[in-house]
């Protein structure tokens, strides 16, 4: 795929307020820990809606390094896949480096499978305690870079839980436009 011009970028990254687990994208991204145990927050919501099959697939994978991602089926979710971005360990917090790495890896996993759409939450901003604004800067930057380098992904969604987070992502994204 040819390189995408910067001009096309805005329409390929979509920010919206809503429920990630209801997204009908090819994949949704789980804010995971590196042991791939789906506990609280986004992970808990995915487990509840997607069913135990997702956790069982995660158990089969076991642990992955912090800053990486893993892919499983979507269980009962509308999305076909769940990509687990491990920006934290159980009991350790998200860092800029682990967020950058796990976001980029999640995008690569999606592109390797030829997926067209993916939806991210604000990874790391729940119990992992990462600041929303920095999260927006890092994730939007990684998403834009990924598209710029050519990808099967046509649209990358950021689906935020509340109005505040949505506004922060939107303002940061606007500021990043050329």
């Amino acid at each position, binding site marked *: 795929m040819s390189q995408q011009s910067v001009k096309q970028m805005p329409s390929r990254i979509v920010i919206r307020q809503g429920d990630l687990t209801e997204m009908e994208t090819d994949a949704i991204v789980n804010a995971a820990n590196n042991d791939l145990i789906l506990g609280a927050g986004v992970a808990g919501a995915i487990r509840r809606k997607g069913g135990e099959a997702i956790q069982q697939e995660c158990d089969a994978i076991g642990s992955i390094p912090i800053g990486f991602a893993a892919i499983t089926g979507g269980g009962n979710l509308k999305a076909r896949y769940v990509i687990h971005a491990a920006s934290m360990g159980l009991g350790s917090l998200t860092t800029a480096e682990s967020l950058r790495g796990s976001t980029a890896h999640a995008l690569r996993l999606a592109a390797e499978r030829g997926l067209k759409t993916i939806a991210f939450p604000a990874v790391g901003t729940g119990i992992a305690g990462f600041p929303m604004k920095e999260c927006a800067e890092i994730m939007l930057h990684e998403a834009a870079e990924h598209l710029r380098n050519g990808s099967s992904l046509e649209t990358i969604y950021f689906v935020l839980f509340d*109005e505040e987070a949505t*506004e922060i992502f939107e303002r940061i994204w606007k500021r990043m436009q050329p």
Partner: protein
Amino acid sequence: MATEIQTIAVIGAGQDGREIACAALRARYRTVLEDVSDSRQDQAVRWIASVDAEASSRLVLSRTVEDAVREADLIIEAVAEEMEIKIEMFTIFDKFAKPNAIFASTSRLVSIADLAAMTFCPERCIGLRFVSFAGHVDALELVRIPQTSEDTIATCREVFRRMGKDVTIVHESELTESR
């Protein structure tokens, strides 16, 4: 001595922003409402129209902070509670606003003193806190810092009285325990 206010710019069309814009329109101020999101602006317009259709027809929308503040006499920042974004807003106000414009913030977490320190006009910086917010704001506190001028306070008191609010003045230093 109060400065005459004709145009009010509201930055951020979330819950606080749309409430303030609506009250400003109904008090016959020229009102500009800024937001980066089309959908949030649409929601705000629909909400204001549901309260007062005539008022909503006078609302001016803006997609950039720079444009919104250029002609405003009073700028009210009502963006998400995030320190760096609020600081960035005050930096833009300082650069693009009219020389005598007043900068107000609805911030609860970020201190007005910190925001004012980003500007060359701390005497024209002030905070706003809504006391009753159950669907209708009928009282608010003006949060002053030591540098806030009497003129700024008098002007804001007059503006919000014209919007039908009960206005009280508090010092930011007195609020520290609630932060």
